[in-house]
């Protein structure tokens, strides 16, 4: 059975009195340990699909089942807890908290767990070491380059040891070298740490790092 099962999912956004269909009865299976790239033009619905898989949005119709749990039926608080337990997020614009150091940013998701301070420290140090920023733990985001900020965001995504990592244009705001570093890191997370990764990207070069590429157009998989 696939880790992620998207079944007949439709998503319609309401803009004032208009209804804008974004996904049309879409179904998709992603096996555990897969590295999938979702590609497509702007407005094709790839980020919406990613958001549904990550549990930060709800389908208008259909179900999203992750490891046997139908997340479309969970309450807001249960969904928040589910995200905390199962999903690691990587955003295009890193979305680090500017007043927190790299260490504190990575530690954020662990504050929702019952881990002791010492255990949290151990995990944060390990995550930062994995992304190669063990020596920048106490730097603030503004003291880091874009590539380094994204690596801190990756450390934050993996620090809870999530089942799935979702990445929305993770290299979209980076120069070529930094983008390459980030993609190598993601590939390593998939191969070495067996993380299932779902990545949205415009960049064909980035998509090549994935095992599977799925294309969306006007809300349908093509």
């Amino acid at each position, binding site marked *: 059975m696939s880790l992620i099962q998207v079944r007949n999912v439709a998503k319609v956004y309401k803009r004032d009195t208009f209804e804008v269909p974004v996904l049309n009865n879409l179904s998709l299976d992603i096996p555990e340990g897969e590295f999938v790239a979702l590609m497509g033009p702007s407005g094709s619905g790839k980020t919406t699909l990613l958001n549904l898989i990550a549990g*930060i949005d709800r389908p208008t119709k259909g179900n999203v089942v992750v490891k046997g749990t139908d997340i479309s039926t969970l309450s807001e608080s249960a969904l928040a807890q589910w995200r*905390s337990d199962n999903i690691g997020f990587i955003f295009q614009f890193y979305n680090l908290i500017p007043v927190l150091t790299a260490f504190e940013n990575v530690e954020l*998701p662990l504050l*929702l767990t019952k881990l002791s301070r010492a255990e949290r420290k151990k995990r944060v140090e390990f995550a930062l070491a994995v992304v190669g920023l063990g020596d920048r733990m106490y730097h603030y985001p503004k003291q880091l380059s874009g590539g380094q900020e994204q690596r801190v965001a990756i450390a934050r995504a993996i620090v809870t040891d999530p089942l799935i990592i979702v990445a929305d244009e993770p290299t979209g705001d980076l120069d070529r070298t930094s983008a390459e570093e980030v993609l190598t890191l993601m590939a390593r997370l998939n191969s070495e740490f067996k993380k299932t990764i779902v990545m949205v990207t415009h960049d064909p070069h980035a998509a090549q790092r994935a095992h599977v590429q799925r294309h969306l157009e006007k809300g349908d998989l093509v």
Partner: protein
Amino acid sequence: MRVLKLIFKNAFRHKLRTLLTVLGIAIAVTAFGLLRTVYTAWHAGLDMAAPDRLISRHSVSFIFPLPYAYLDKIQRVPGVEMVTYANWFQGVYIDKNQFFARLAVDAKTYFEVYREFLLPPDQYEAFKKERNACVVGETIARQYGFKLGDVVNITGDIYPGDWQFVVRGIYQRRDETVDGTQMVFHWEYLNERMRTDAPGRDGDVGWYIVKIADPNRSAEVSSQVDALFANSRAETKTETERAFQQSFIAATGTIVTAMNFLSFVIIGIIMLVLGNTMIMSARERTREYAVLKTLGFSGGHLVGLIGGESLLISIAGAGVGVLLTFPLVEVFAAALPKGFFPVFTIEPITLTLAVLSAITVGVTASIFPIQRALGTRIVDGLRHVG
């Protein structure tokens, strides 16, 4: 602990903005404290008023005197325990800015009725024995450096002439709410001078102070006293001491009410200042709140973060404001004519109100930003450009 740290760091993310907000709140709290202090000083007489004391004055106005002959009649009214009397003397000590109550009183009974003025027995005896002796309150004794045996020269205005009094007693206040600014001397001394210097003005007293046995019978005793002098040339109006004090305050009621109203307007201003800061901060952090929600932080966490920040700023402002209130009240008191307010201290209730108001403001100012943060969908928040 980390969440507290985040609240603290968020609060000081824009140091200048936070500093200005804290200062704004501090100034408002200080103004609130000062206005409330003036307001409570105005009402201090009411707090001092004893429930078992009635004031019997001329029914037309307080400024008209009553015959001394009423004393015996009032004393015979059932329920009356003791009667004393007083006259507003006024006069000028040094200059007109040196303001404190100067009263001609019945030396034998005044301190028996006003038990909150604590006068050592030896000084009390000395006061009673000497015709031109006076007793001063500890507050004015401290202000003017009066000592026992000092001579106080007063220039009369209502009662013209030069008047000399010898300080034979300094009374202490039973507690902070008691007026420590009175100067009292023998009514007989005044009456004798009037008999010789202004015949026709002798034999009058300003008002009677009637101590009653049962405060629950104040209305009944008042009616009986007034009934004694109904249709006479000087009818009386007898009321509780509190009602008597209130009639004074009523004369300046509009100002006092405006002052009270203003003190609460100030709270509204604080709320707008802090509310504005919190709304700006929350709007700028829309995406961060969405990220936190994405990571699994609940609505409760966001309430804690935003509410905590708002409270931190409001409490910091209240703290600075309360600290500033003390010197400001001192400066204000020094600028007033001496003794203008018999009791001019910052009441604990004023400080409590100021701090409670600031906390209420902190909570209220965070409601809209919290609503906004909770109501914004994660996907919209992540798209927000702030």
